[in-house]
């Protein structure tokens, strides 16, 4: 039996084995039920890299109804437009019905602009053609953002907010909380 000490008294005493055990079990419980995401360290690394590059955060200009259609129709979404001081980008994201992968058709203001699609720690690059067009195919179905490399050396790289990709159906959405610069 524990002696009938008050909580206030107990609070001022040094930790003992029971405390260690209780805290150890709490840690185990939270590690099991709410662990940090597996790609948290990677995403921090990317955030630090972007910060070191002094990237400009593009604004989400237009986000009309972005439901990913799940019928047998072409799974087109409406377009998303990002604007920045140097570059504008419009994208359409399409889900392949067979394998669930993403196709992205993009139009950027200018040819020869390299744009990376960042998903976790993976990067898929494309460079716009003379009409400013770019395409990415067979991307995994997971949240993504775009990193634009301006053609002129004196312009800053531009990063867009993250676009959420629902695992099935639902709405694509941009996460406003990313805008903390």
């Amino acid at each position, binding site marked *: 039996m*524990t002696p009938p000490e008050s*909580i*206030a008294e*107990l*609070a*001022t*005493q*040094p*930790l003992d084995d*029971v*405390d*260690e*055990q*209780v*805290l*150890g*079990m*709490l*840690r*185990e*419980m*939270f*590690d*099991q*039920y*709410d*662990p*940090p*995401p597996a790609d*948290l*360290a990677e*995403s*921090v*690394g990317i*955030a*630090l890299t972007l*910060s*070191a590059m002094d990237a400009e955060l593009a604004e989400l200009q237009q986000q009309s109804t972005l439901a990913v259609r799940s019928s047998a129709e072409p799974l087109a979404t409406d377009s998303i437009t990002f604007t920045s001081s140097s570059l504008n980008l419009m994208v359409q994201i399409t889900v392949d019905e067979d394998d669930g992968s993403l196709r992205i058709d993009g139009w950027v203001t200018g040819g020869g602009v390299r744009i990376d699609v960042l998903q976790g720690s993976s990067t898929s690059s494309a460079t716009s053609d003379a009409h400013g067009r770019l395409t990415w195919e067979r991307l995994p179905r997971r*949240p993504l953002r775009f990193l634009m490399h301006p053609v002129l050396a004196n312009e800053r790289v531009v990063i867009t907010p*993250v676009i*959420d990709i629902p695992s099935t159906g639902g709405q694509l959405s941009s*996460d*406003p*909380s*990313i805008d*903390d610069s």
Partner: protein
Amino acid sequence: MATMTEQRATSATNQPTGPQSMVDEASDHFAAFQSGELQRMTPLVELLNPVLWHIARSCGLDQQSAQDVVQCAWVRLVEKSDQIQNPRTVVAWLGTTARREAWRVRKNQRRTDPRANEEIPTSDGGIGDPADDVVFAEDQRLLWTHFRELSPRCQQLLRVICQGGPADYADLSSALNMPIGSIGPTRGRCLAALRTALLNDPDWSTS
């Protein structure tokens, strides 16, 4: 923090064979980073991400927002690294930054989502109820039951300090703006309350 060495000494006597404390390890990495070993940021991130994650989650953020908050705290640290004069304060500094950012994000979310309109959120951050899990061990279920009866602030404190060792409690609790153990690692009211509840539960066994 004048009491830091004293706390470490106390901890060292309690745990003679214990590993280096989280604060010690973080301090080593960060001091090296500050002196130009930039690659030391990687092990520092790995070491402290779980703590920052649980700070953000215990402020009631969803997983995506918590991830953003953790990223933000690291970016701020690198931006301000030359202003942090004592590398031993890096854990408290990062934790405080993550907590403040988490509350800022949550405040914004409250403005747009009336369901989130509560002064102090539940600290589980929506992990669900482990008691529903059939494989949840009996003692874990009891622990969860009593943990949930603590005040939200106590839940937050215990959730975060259990990520470190006794020598780290002072820094972790000060990051949460709930300083405990100014002289050596004492258990504090929250842990005293949980411990008392468990020891008074006839089904609890301290095996």
